[in-house]
């Protein structure tokens, strides 16, 4: 059933296009890494967006987090179907076991959700996390690098972790 049209598109298509425009690229990156299959990745993304649009879920947290988790389920469903399909002997190496595939995809999901969470925390907090955790600076070195007092580095480190926890909870990631 067609609803109101805008610029030749139905409103449904507008909603789907919007979702795709906002999140498509990030989803594509995730799916490409998880599946290692550049050709199939766009299809997975499209099916994901479609599923979410069809279900029209009530999402209180992050739509992007929800899309990532849906993409994970789409990939695992596909994989399950593919592994139950008979294959020509000798032509293809044995498939990764299902638990391994799930574990691998989940590990990557953790990663992309973390990327997303880090993007959402404030710049000041991000800088301190980057300096202390990733670049392995001491508080004193981070203070010098960021041009702020050491006490501020410590206090931002604490509030950065709190903010990260709260963003992750918002995205549906359990503590």
């Amino acid at each position, binding site marked *: 059933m067609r609803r109101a049209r805008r610029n030749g598109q139905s409103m449904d298509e507008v909603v*789907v296009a919007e979702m795709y425009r906002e999140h498509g*690229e990030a989803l594509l990156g995730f799916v490409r890494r998880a599946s290692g299959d550049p050709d199939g990745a766009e299809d997975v993304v499209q099916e994901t967006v479609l599923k979410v649009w069809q279900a029209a879920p009530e999402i209180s947290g992050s739509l992007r987090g929800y899309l990532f988790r849906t993409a994970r389920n789409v990939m695992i469903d596909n994989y399950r179907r593919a592994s139950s399909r008979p294959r020509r002997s000798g032509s293809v190496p044995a498939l990764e076991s299902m638990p391994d595939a799930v574990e691998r995809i989940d590990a*990557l999901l953790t990663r992309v959700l*973390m990327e997303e969470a880090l993007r*959402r925390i404030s710049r000041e907090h991000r800088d*301190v996390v980057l300096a202390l955790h990733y670049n392995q600076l001491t508080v004193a070195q981070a203070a010098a690098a960021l041009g702020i007092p050491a006490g501020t580095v410590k*206090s931002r480190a*604490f509030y950065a972790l709190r903010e990260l926890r709260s963003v992750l909870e918002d995205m549906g990631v359990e503590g």
Partner: protein
Amino acid sequence: MTGIDAADGGHGDLGAYLLGGLSAGERSRFEEHLFGCASCRSELARLRDLPARLGALSAEEANQLLGGDDPAETGSAASAALPLAGGTADGGRRRPVGAWPESLIELRRRARRRAFALAAAVAVLAGAAGGAVGYVAGAPRGPAEPAPGASYALTSRHGVQARVDLDRKAWGTEVSLTAAELPTTGVLELWILDGSGQSNRVGSWMATTTGKSAITCPVPLQLPAIERVQVRSGGRSVLAEVRLPPSGAS
């Protein structure tokens, strides 16, 4: 709220403690404080998994992702690792609204077709990784095109969570390891095994009290010549191993 004020005495070190920014002296002072401070212990319990979660990104990725002027506008490190197929002129960052081309029915039809492609890709990984849980950011390709490096993530049977990135360089390969759940004492070593059976120690470092390490080593071997990357303890037992696909497998 637990009443912890980050600027207040020992409490204030909690964030820096978890993020590994305290000196050895500060760390032991904070641990003493922790022993007698219930609110810090409860806050610690709430936040303590975060460093391990941060470990999902390597230092290089995090710097790439977060180090820019406006990380909110930066592409995902995951998506940045590969060029977008049929990428748009602006590097594939944004897709115009009109680029949602197919009807919804067509999308459903297409979605059913790609199961085998995924299976084939996963099969290559399974064969390549030799049981390790790995993923390939960009599988090595034929010699004619400038091939990207490769990345693998795994949890070894020793419980070590490791991520290995291999970047092609003119002089060989830059091997980066980011790992968690490593031994917390002693010396750790990174070893490379090549196709001819030669094994070489390419780096060694002191274990950290957090069990996390990040190390980058230049290896004077081209990527296809590298067969395995191993993390070993000083006693030479293998703690984690990544087996690379034989060249040409993909």
